[in-house]
């Protein structure tokens, strides 16, 4: 698997600026784009190493031809990159119809399109990851069962809201209190409520509310920690396969994610040896590793890290003097025989270690409240806490939502009932899916948490590589009309694994899904 591409910070796309721009130093380790290669040799000439004639005529000539080239190719659309031939990148399908205001506006620029920043250029490229393409396809043509749960326990939450509507609605009635500016890292009352909730979810560890920074979702929480713990061009080690969104979450920070590949033979648990190796390889390349990022329960595999592994991880981090970021967003979504152990449980919060361990949490998974945008950073490192609080000003939780959640999370009896029911229903769905797939001859990795199964379809792919995997993915999506995500989107080194989420359908529809998968499986077997 190639490293995730992080856009070069000095990528100036097709900008017709003067050739005497100062050399910008880059700390990125990715390759420089062609524009920069043109300018650098030019500088040598311009700086007089080629004499007056060479120093002026040649750069002028080059520049003139460069301008001609730009003018000629101005309207050419950006070339598609890394796109499998049978898929088109998502662009127009997600854009809504553009307006009528543009034809009315006169344009008289003669200098060509104004360049956007390199960062914008990189980010505005169409989504080519199957992870996102699959989501888009679902949106275009969604399956709507007669009963649509969307989140296993949403009924419980709705019931709570109806019974307590005065308390929750009060958030909007008391508008004078909540519409005004609030502390940008979250209301203290919500921090208190969240700390109690997190403490319960993570197995009764002690969570200090003053060590929480609340953010609008776990996405900005990851980014904020990226900004705080590493500089542009540094790296985090990350056990792979890993959640596809982390690549996007860290784009703006310029932090490279170095995958530490895990194998099915180990049920995709990482080893310290592998971490050590990845660390040393990075060092050889001149890349400074600042931390390890992992999710526990793991996404996409769903396994839980045993206590001993956590201890070893902490030892490793201590030895290298690096950080650990533990994304525990699925902590409350466990259903197996294993108990979830948070890294908070093994850290000695009186010790120096407290400065290197940071936890990410959010309500998008355990409470299915993804739309409300509620996330948290938990850290005892005072400096990180201070810096995160300041960065959180860009990512504050909307006040009415904070108030609603203060009420809801403070209702301990309801939360208890919810978590028990949630786990029960998760187990039912998980077992149902796993056994359904087993009947089709497809096995799943052992998992005890998460909202998905990690499915081994390697026997069905041909050839046994990423191309074969994507072909199967396309078949499942286009023919089977089932959106499950291919392992390559999660940087899995073994082809043929797929992540299959089971919490977006009612239990009654499981046979339907299995039927669809069965058709595709049969067509694969017959064509091989």
């Amino acid at each position, binding site marked *: 698997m190639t490293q995730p591409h992080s856009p070069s910070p000095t990528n100036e796309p097709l900008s017709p600026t003067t050739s005497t721009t100062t050399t910008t130093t880059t700390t990125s380790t990715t390759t420089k784009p062609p524009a920069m290669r043109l300018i650098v040799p030019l500088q040598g000439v311009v700086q007089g190493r080629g004499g007056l004639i060479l120093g002026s005529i040649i750069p002028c000539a080059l520049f003139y031809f460069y301008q001609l080239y730009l003018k000629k190719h101005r309207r050419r659309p950006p070339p598609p990159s890394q796109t499998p031939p049978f898929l088109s990148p998502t662009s127009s399908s997600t854009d809504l119809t553009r307006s009528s205001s543009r034809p009315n506006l006169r344009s008289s*620029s003669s200098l060509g399109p*104004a360049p956007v920043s390199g960062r914008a250029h990189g980010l505005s490229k169409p989504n080519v990851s199957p992870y996102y393409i699959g989501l888009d396809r679902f949106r275009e043509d969604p399956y709507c069962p007669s009963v649509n749960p969307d989140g296993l326990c949403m009924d419980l939450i709705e019931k709570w809201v109806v019974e307590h509507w005065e308390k929750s*609605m009060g958030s909007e009635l008391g*508008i004078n209190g909540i519409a005004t*500016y609030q502390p940008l890292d979250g209301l203290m009352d919500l921090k208190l409520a969240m700390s109690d909730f997190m403490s319960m979810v993570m197995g009764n560890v002690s969570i200090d509310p003053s060590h929480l920074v609340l953010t609008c979702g776990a996405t900005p929480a990851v980014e904020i920690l990226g900004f705080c713990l590493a*500089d542009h061009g540094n790296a985090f080690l990350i056990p792979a396969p890993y959640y596809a969104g982390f690549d996007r979450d860290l784009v703006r920070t310029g932090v490279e994610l170095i995958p530490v590949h895990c194998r099915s033979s180990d049920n995709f648990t990482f080893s310290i040896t592998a971490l050590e190796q990845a660390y040393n390889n990075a060092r050889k390349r001149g890349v400074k590793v600042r931390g390890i990022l992992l999710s526990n329960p793991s996404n996409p595999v769903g396994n839980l890290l045993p206590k001993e592994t956590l201890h070893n991880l902490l030892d490793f981090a201590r030895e290298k003097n690096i950080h650990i970021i533990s994304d525990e967003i699925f902590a409350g979504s466990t259903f197996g025989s294993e108990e979830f152990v948070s890294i908070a449980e093994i850290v000695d919060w009186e010790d120096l270690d407290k400065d290197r361990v940071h936890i990410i949490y959010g309500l998008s998974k355990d409470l299915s409240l993804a739309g409300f945008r509620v996330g948290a950073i938990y850290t005892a490192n005072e400096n990180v806490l201070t810096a995160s609080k300041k960065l959180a000003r*860009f990512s504050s939780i909307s006040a009415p939502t904070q108030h609603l959640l203060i009420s809801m999370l403070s209702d301990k009896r309801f939360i208890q009932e919810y978590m028990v029911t949630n786990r029960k229903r998760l187990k039912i769905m998980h077992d149902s899916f796993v056994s359904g797939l087993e009947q089709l001859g497809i096995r799943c990795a052992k998992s005890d948490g998460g909202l998905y199964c990690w499915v081994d379809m390697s026997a069905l792919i041909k050839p046994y590589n990423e191309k074969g995997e994507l072909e199967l993915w396309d078949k499942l999506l286009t023919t089977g009309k089932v959106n499950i995500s291919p392992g390559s989107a999660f940087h899995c080194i073994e082809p043929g694994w797929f992540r299959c989420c089971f919490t977006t359908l009612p239990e009654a529809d499981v046979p339907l899904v299995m039927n669809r998968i069965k058709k595709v499986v049969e067509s694969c077997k017959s064509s091989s």
Partner: protein
Amino acid sequence: MLSKIAAGNGHAEESAYFDGWKAYENDPFHPVDKPHGVIQMGLAENQLCFDLVKEWILKNPSASICTVEGVDQFQDIAIYQDYHGLPEFRKAVARFMEKVRGEKVKFDRDLRWRTGVQLVPVLCNSSDNFKITKSALEDAYERAQDAKIKVKGLLITNPSNPLGTVLDKETLISILAFTNEKNIHLVSDEIYGATVFGQPKFISIAEIMIDQPHNPDLIHIVYSLSKDLGFPGFRVGIVYSYNDNVVNCARKMSSFGLVSTQTQRLIASMLSDEVFVERFLVESSKRLEERHRAFTWGLNQVGIQSLKSNAGLFVWMDLRHLLQDATVEAELTLWRVIINEVKINVSPGSSFHCSEPGWFRVCIANMSDETMDVALRRIRSFVLKKKNVAKPPVVSTKRKCWQTNLQLRLSNKRLDDFMGISQIGSPHSPLPQSPLLRAQT
């Protein structure tokens, strides 16, 4: 062990602007419990029309997903995390923006949202009533070039913060011509668009674009519900751009700052109620005008002038005549007195990079009429006391005990301004080294 961003001072929260807020937080005014506390006049909030909003919410229970009438929508709203946002929300906000601009422009392109504003100082003088002149723009551009800084755009706030003035048509045309000529972006922060009262009326850059030559890819509007509607706590910001690349990118970046769907839903309902919106805009404008008139009249009575303005939630107060000398230090000395003795949190002009010492921004829309009266009384008695003193005392170099709480970090702001490097002190601006907006030089 920390990154440079985390360890540095880029957050710029150590400026007089934020020190004033801290002073308020330590000793906040309350009419009954703390009548001698610090009155907050450094925060541009609009609290004048909450009664109208509350009335609307009571009348429209289905707008909230937390009511019996609205809870059927709870599930769909709670799981919705598409970064396009709820379509009804986008439409409602676009419609509202059109209304604020007198229906003269259409915002029918898709709206994306993310807050992020950076300031680059272009010097304006009181002799011009702080107008933005072409020569000031050219001068700033040249200074940046001399310092080898690449100018990527011009950011204007219209109506202006902290001045409270509305940009006139000629100025807007000249600004557009300037950015067009330099082929740089123009970002117009129109967050105070609906806080205008009386004349002159607000003119959006969108209106100027209609019959002036320009490159639409260069024009972007920033908006929010924090000032016009008084909902800063809701965290709703809007990026409106005519540039597809920018919109695409902004949509993706908005993952880091999505608006809570609960809020989207409530706002969508509220802003779709055209009758309510019309009434709100008229009433809000009226109340702002009354407040503005009352306050400036009160200041006038004691010989304090302010810049003639008809927008914003504040007044740009001229206290130059109260300064010992025309320096930033004298301004800050006076400011400390205002905080500690007069007990009002106002914001000194230097925190807004004003090149002339002695101007102060005073926010007037975030309090009740009674508190406003208390504030005016305090200001008036302070000024009268000062007048009665024969000669202002020489400021002792020995630090008094009341100075210990206010630690001001004065980096060489003057030099930095001339170099075009910004040290930010504005309310909704990001870190100057914010990776989001660090221009590629």
